[in-house]
């Protein structure tokens, strides 16, 4: 851990806030991706069954 001196709060909060936002964005993206993929697979399977 480097010595951040009197600015420790500013630097650490910046990193924490940014990483939090990035992780939230990536997490949301992956979650929604997985959900839509699953829904699509389900509907495709259902329509396959009904038409097939």
């Amino acid at each position, binding site marked *: 851990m480097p010595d951040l*001196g009197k600015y420790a709060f*500013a630097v650490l909060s910046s*990193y924490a806030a*940014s990483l939090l*936002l*990035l992780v939230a964005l990536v997490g949301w993206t992956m979650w929604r*991706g997985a959900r839509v993929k699953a829904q699509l697979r389900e509907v495709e399977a259902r329509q396959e069954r009904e038409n097939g």
Partner: protein
Amino acid sequence: MSIWEYANPKRFMQTSAWVLPWVAVLALACLVAGLIWGFFFTPDDFRQGSTVKIIYLHVPSAMMAINAWVMMLVTSLIWLVRRHHVSALAAKAAAPIGLTFTVIALVTGAFWGQPMWGTWWAWDPRLTSFLILTLFYLGYIALWQAVENPDTAADLTAVLCLVGSVFALLSRYAVLFWNQGLHQGASLSLDKEENVADVFWLPLLVCIAGFVLLFVALVLMRTRTEIRARRLQALLARERLA
């Protein structure tokens, strides 16, 4: 083969499935390397002390916040002119990413400004235009959400993006004009590249590369999701009609 072939959804899905993992891994590698390098292994600035470490988040996110809007502008134009659906969906996918980067730039800027300028916020032209950019992102996203028909939404948001870009530029100059001659926010910012010493510059470059790659990876991922969502909607609608 024309580059437009990639605008075919199927083609895009195949290609992006292949490219995405590489970009994602590379993005992660660059981000981790750049941030660790910057955070742990760079010296403090003689004037700004350790706050200079914020630069590794602040500058890349600020750059990408603007670039994301430019990318949305380009894809919107492509949609309006050539009617490639993937293009419109890529614009839709990029907006929340751009918004997040804008917020990161604002937040890190605020944390930086507190020790440097003695205030969390000053109505400095650059800061102000970023706040206005946030508003454009919010409006763009809200319009996508409010319109139900996907093609209508794509058209309307594309028009908004075009007109909005012109006004965003105009606002930028207006804001510069507005804060001239008045009390200038104590700007310690190292405005010119030359001011940044190599010790800071190299890890910064790695971080910028990381943010660019992260942006690409996220846009690819989200565009894939939007394509799937669009197809899902089409299938359900057809079920309805039958």
